[in-house]
């Protein structure tokens, strides 16, 4: 495949990837994790303040890298932010991940790059989580960049590759704690792939002065970048040590999870085949091609192509090590797939290129045709996951997702505020556990007088014209509010309900706004 053709395929992949990632960014209600991140970012946007929380929220890159997006859109407050601004940030990094692949053209081959770019563009899991305002799409981008830079550094011993690896590694560390899995996986895989070449491996001059300087420059870059973000651009230097303090939390959570515990094959199942409620999902094509790519990379090497052998072995080992590590940790969330799956997609591209390289032309044509057809099918799945079933629990990538009913409830509260004398300053009480409060702070962000309580007992919460309650607080609220309030049930997440209490007088005025009864109404 010529350079022009590769460029054309990558451009096509980029267009398809952007189309899928940018389509109706507000189609899915804000997940409570997204809402939490959004409110934290809102504080940074409004006050310029950020403090790393060693127990939650992960690293700071997401918030700082969201600032330019808000500034470009002229948004200066939490209330003015919208889903497009926030999710646009993660879409950018999901797209940058795709654009990293052409950096490998001389290393894994043009066909592999073209195939990988197409798969990265249309992979449902990559598309879905690129549209979610959480750290994962940034993390996948930084870790893949780190892996590519480490591979380049291994081959060239050059300081520029080391510095790039340091920058990418520093960004990864400043994004998520699971960089302790991804970064060592890349280093170990690079060493393993190099060692596996036996007599064909090239000398590593780690003892040389230039190499030592290069490695030290890379380490310095990593420390500088991570320190820059964790210390809030050196305004809070002591925070540089905070990730170490938080390590215990994440280790405990990973090994003995209170929630989100799943079996070792969870990620594999999610990627290969899921059927639920009449819908079927599979990224089996990518998994299969990655297995082919990994297997063929570890066959006896072609003496004339040490470069491709090294990269095939390196990327497959990197993906496998990271995937195994993530699978062995009991704590699992589906978006944790992204960092190692980005590697798997590149290995899948290598797998396809090896199949097409087979001497028999007819077979190559058939394989290419099947691949293109399957890629279109993946794109269809991605669109379905991202838009049509964006919040449907039958979508395997939907996880503890806010349901549209919760958005309707928030819209109802704003409608009620519109007819209340205090307008958006109307007092609203939310009486629910923190897990059942989110993402309401996001959806009620334009209302300054929303109070949050975890339980009943405070007379202040009963003074609101509108009260939102979790199921367990309803008996106490029913007793306290009685017939003075009208109630409506709304869903928050599947099988998690909230009740909206509205003062009867306000409710009557709300109903008076709607048209009279239709024919036949008793």
């Amino acid at each position, binding site marked *: 495949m010529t350079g022009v053709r590769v460029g054309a395929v990558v451009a096509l992949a980029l267009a398809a990837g952007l189309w899928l990632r940018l389509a109706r960014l507000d189609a899915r209600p804000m997940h409570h994790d997204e809402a939490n991140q959004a409110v934290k970012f809102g504080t940074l946007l409004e006050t310029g303040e950020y403090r790393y929380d060693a127990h939650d929220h992960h690293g700071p890159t997401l918030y700082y890298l969201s600032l330019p997006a808000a500034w470009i859109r002229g948004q200066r407050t939490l209330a003015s932010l919208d889903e497009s601004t926030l999710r646009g940030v993660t879409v950018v990094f999901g797209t940058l991940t795709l654009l990293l692949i052409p950096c490998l053209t001389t290393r894994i081959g043009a066909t592999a790059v073209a195939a990988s770019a197409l798969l990265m563009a249309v992979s449902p899991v990559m598309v879905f989580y690129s549209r979610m305002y959480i750290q994962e799409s940034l993390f996948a981008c930084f870790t893949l960049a780190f892996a590519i830079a480490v591979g380049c550094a291994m081959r060239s011993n050059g300081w520029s590759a080391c510095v790039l690896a340091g920058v990418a590694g520093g960004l990864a560390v400043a994004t998520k704690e699971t960089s302790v899995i991804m970064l060592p996986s890349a280093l170990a895989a690079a060493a393993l792939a190099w060692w596996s070449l036996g007599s064909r491996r090239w000398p590593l001059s780690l003892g040389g002065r230039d190499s030592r300087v290069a490695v030290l420059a890379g380490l310095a870059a990593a420390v500088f970048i991570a320190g820059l973000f964790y210390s809030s651009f050196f305004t809070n230097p002591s925070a540089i040590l905070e990730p170490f303090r938080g390590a215990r939390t994440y280790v405990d959570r990973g090994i003995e999870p209170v929630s989100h515990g799943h079996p070792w094959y969870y990620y594999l199942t999610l990627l290969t085949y899921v059927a639920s*409620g009449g819908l079927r999902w599979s990224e089996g094509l990518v998994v299969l091609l990655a297995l082919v790519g990994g297997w063929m990379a570890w066959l006896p090497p072609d003496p004339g192509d040490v470069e491709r052998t090294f990269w095939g072995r390196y990327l497959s080992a990197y993906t496998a090590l990271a995937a195994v590590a993530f699978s062995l940790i009991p704590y699992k969330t589906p978006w944790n797939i992204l960092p190692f799956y980005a590697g798997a997609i590149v290995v899948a591209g290598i797998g396809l290129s090896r199949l097409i390289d087979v001497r028999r032309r007819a077979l190559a044509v058939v394989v290419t045709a099947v691949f293109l057809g399957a890629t279109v099918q993946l794109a269809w799945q991605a669109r379905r996951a991202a838009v049509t079933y964006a919040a449907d629990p039958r979508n395997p990538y939907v996880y503890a997702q806010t349901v549209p009913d919760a958005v309707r409830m928030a819209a109802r509260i704003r409608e009620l505020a519109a007819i209340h004398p205090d307008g958006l300053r109307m007092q609203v009480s939310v009486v629910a556990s923190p897990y059942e409060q989110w993402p309401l702070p996001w959806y009620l962000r334009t209302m300054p007088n929303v109070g949050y309580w975890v339980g009943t007992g405070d007379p202040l919460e009963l003074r609101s014209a509108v009260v939102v309650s979790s199921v367990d607080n309803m008996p106490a609220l029913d007793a306290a509010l009685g017939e003075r309030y009208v*109630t*409506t*049930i709304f869903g928050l997440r*599947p099988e998690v*309900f909230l009740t909206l209490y509205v003062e009867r007088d306000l409710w009557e005025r709300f109903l008076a706004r709607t048209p009279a009864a*239709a*024919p*036949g109404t008793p």
Partner: protein
Amino acid sequence: MIKRTLASSLLFVLALAPLAAAQSADPNKEELKLKLPKPMFIGTPTNIKSANLEPITGKPRPPFFVPKGTVLLSLKKAVTASDSAPVIGELDMITDGEKSGGDGYFVEFGPSTQWVQVDLGAPHPLSAILLWHYHSQARVYHDVVVQVSDDAAFKSGVTTVYNNDHDNSSKLGVGKDKEYIEVAEGRLIDPKGAKGRYVRFYSNGNTTNDLNHYVEIEVYGLPK
């Protein structure tokens, strides 16, 4: 606490008993025999109590009495809908007699207010209507409205026999009936003898997603 629950249950049964006895004592009525599907989930959230939500007792529905001679009118009858091309399933699945809650037995329609309509072939006095939206998960369907008419377009002669759209968000009028959590025994609606050829069912999403679903509809009435 247990004693109080038992006492409440006993009072509830005692309160209903005369009503049921009165119905069964009517020589012109008989118990409606229903074939119910297997429950798909256990643990309906019985702790949810709200003025606009049907109380969840966790017990089987009491017998329902209908005029003698009542038959199932809707089986295999033609179904039309606001969306003639459902996202999942075919319209005829709604009256095919299959009420299982599993995959492949429900029809899925898009978001917002949607309706399906059963053509009984001729006007009939109706005795009972049973409705299963989706009973694999505890969820509430919003704005459930059931209307009967001889006009296929539902522009004239419309009788509303059920309406739980209490905020009038579907613009069909404010309803006074209660919302309810979907379970395997379906929703039994008493049409109180309303007569008509067409029965139309509205809904407007649910507490899990924006979509509208139907597993089965059964309309019972007198043959003529």
